[in-house]
């Protein structure tokens, strides 16, 4: 009579052990609070930013040209197709003319496309980073008090550096977040 009970316990112990190994691995892959976005197509329904966000080797033209009006958003934040679309429409870039000459455009496009999100499996390709599912989940009302967006120091979701001081370096670590008062 002891045997089945022991066997059950052993199975349970093995299962627990397996879980304790599996869970940290799954979490280490990403930041917290992402579990509920899981779908068959991948995390965030496939609209997931890549890793790393900013490649180890950056591009001087990209740094210079993409940071005059806003911070140079890390290429890993959007899929390759989004960058292709952004770079094809620079003459009307969110209401502004941000056109480049052909050589600059080609070089920067290649850099963005080559370093785009490597975890974006959805067929979507938004133009705005803030339209992606991962962005919305990370910044929904349960995460960020809606009043924060109205703070003039924040102004717009495009202003990453308002709360992520090292956004320009591609560092969005949660521990470094400083929400302006």
């Amino acid at each position: 009579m002891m045997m089945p009970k022991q066997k059950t316990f052993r199975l349970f112990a093995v299962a627990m052990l397996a879980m304790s190994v599996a869970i940290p691995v799954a979490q280490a892959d990403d930041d917290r609070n992402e579990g509920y976005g899981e779908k068959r197509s991948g995390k965030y329904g496939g609209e997931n930013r890549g890793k790393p966000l900013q490649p180890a080797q950056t591009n001087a033209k990209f740094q210079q040209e993409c940071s005059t009006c806003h911070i140079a958003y890390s290429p890993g934040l959007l899929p390759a197709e989004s960058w292709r679309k952004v770079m094809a429409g620079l003459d009307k870039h969110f209401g502004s003319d941000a056109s480049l000459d052909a050589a600059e455009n080609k070089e920067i496009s290649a850099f963005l496309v080559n370093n785009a999100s490597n975890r974006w499996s959805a067929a979507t390709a938004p133009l705005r980073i803030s339209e992606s599912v991962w962005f919305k989940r990370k910044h929904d009302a349960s995460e960020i008090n809606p009043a924060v967006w109205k703070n003039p120091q924040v102004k717009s979701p495009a202003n990453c550096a308002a709360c992520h001081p090292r956004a320009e370096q591609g560092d969005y670590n949660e521990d470094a977040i400083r929400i302006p008062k």
Partner: protein
Amino acid sequence: MFRIFHIGVVFMAVAGLAAQPAWAETPSEILASIQKEAAGTPGFQGFSAERGMSFFKAKHTNEWSCASCHTDNPAMPGKHAKTGKAIDPLAPSAYAARFTSPKKVEKWFKRNCNDVLDRACTPQEKGDVLAYLLTVKK
């Protein structure tokens, strides 16, 4: 030791040469080349800093004027009207790198004139604005 110094001097000279293109011209040289362009248009009678100032501060076709981002005082740092990103002063007296690269001047006139007027600026307009900016004291 001497050798290291030698290499250092060569390196600095090369770095100095490499930095050259950004400072290829002075603002007056750039103004002169805009003038050359404007001279071809009928009725051209030179540039006016005063006209440049009103052009700079006024709204034209669109919601933004030049001053929307560069402020009413081009000797002061500006701020992008949409993103809030800081912009260095536009007046050469306040920021020496301004109007020293013809390529940059062309690029930004094209972009900003489209944003403000929905069209390219005429040589007259560009010259007036630069003439105005050159009168702005720090």
